[in-house]
């Protein structure tokens, strides 16, 4: 497949994630939209790695393998991030009995 298609698919998924972060007030949904953005970037990294592999396979048999390993590390970091983030959201829910991010503006008072 031409790399253009993957670029535009990833850009569209990323922008849907951005729009979700801006339009929702539920902290958990906002978090899920961040995951959506991470996945869009992962898809683009894999597509680029396969593009690079096809272009330079004659020189280096393992060309493009770094991109896929970066995706692996991004998944690992995302898993750690989700566990800490959900713990913070649960703590916030215990204190305010709500997951509405607009309640968090009391931090400024």
């Amino acid at each position, binding site marked *: 497949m031409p790399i253009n298609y993957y670029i535009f698919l990833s850009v569209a998924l990323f922008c849907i994630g951005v729009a979700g972060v801006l339009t929702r007030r539920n902290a958990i949904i906002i978090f899920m*939209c961040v995951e959506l953005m991470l996945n869009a970037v992962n898809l683009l990294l894999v597509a680029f790695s396969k593009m690079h592999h096809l272009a330079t396979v004659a020189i280096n048999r393992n060309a493009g393998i770094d991109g896929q390993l970066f995706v692996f590390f991004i998944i690992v970091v*995302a898993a750690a991030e989700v566990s800490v983030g959900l713990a913070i959201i649960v703590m916030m829910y215990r204190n305010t009995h709500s997951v509405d991010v607009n309640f968090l503006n009391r931090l400024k008072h």
Partner: protein
Amino acid sequence: MGTTQILFWFLSILALFSAIMVVVSKNPVHSVLWLILVFFSISGHYILLNAQFLAIVNLIVYAGAIMVLFLFVIMLMNLNADTEPQKNKWLKIAGVVAGGALLLVLVAALKDADLKNQIAQTGQGEIGLIHNLGMALFKDYVIPFEITSVLFLSAMVGAVVIGKK
């Protein structure tokens, strides 16, 4: 149109539709289920690109572990469509316009890029297989791999400390 093209368009449309449904669903549980569908279609894309290890890891870690964590938290808080906080109409429109403007800028910047001859290899190539990825992971990337375990330990300790008080 070959099988690869048909599968690509099917998976792309499924991913985009499910992603939009994640954002517009009133009920948080439905959002989680749509997001699982997004992850499945992205895993399908990985299989199409012959990145089989990442496809399975994506399914196990994202669709299996992370989404179950989200579902548990949502069920623990008893969230549903009635308790869902809504932004007012104008803020929603502003958010969608901002996201659309970002999409417009990126597409306008990328549509004239000279990528016509660049093809992402589908259905073949061996770099996505677990043998090659494992060799690279434990030869060139062994230090980051070990540091990852420290990251996980600190995340685990952090989650327990935050959740306990």
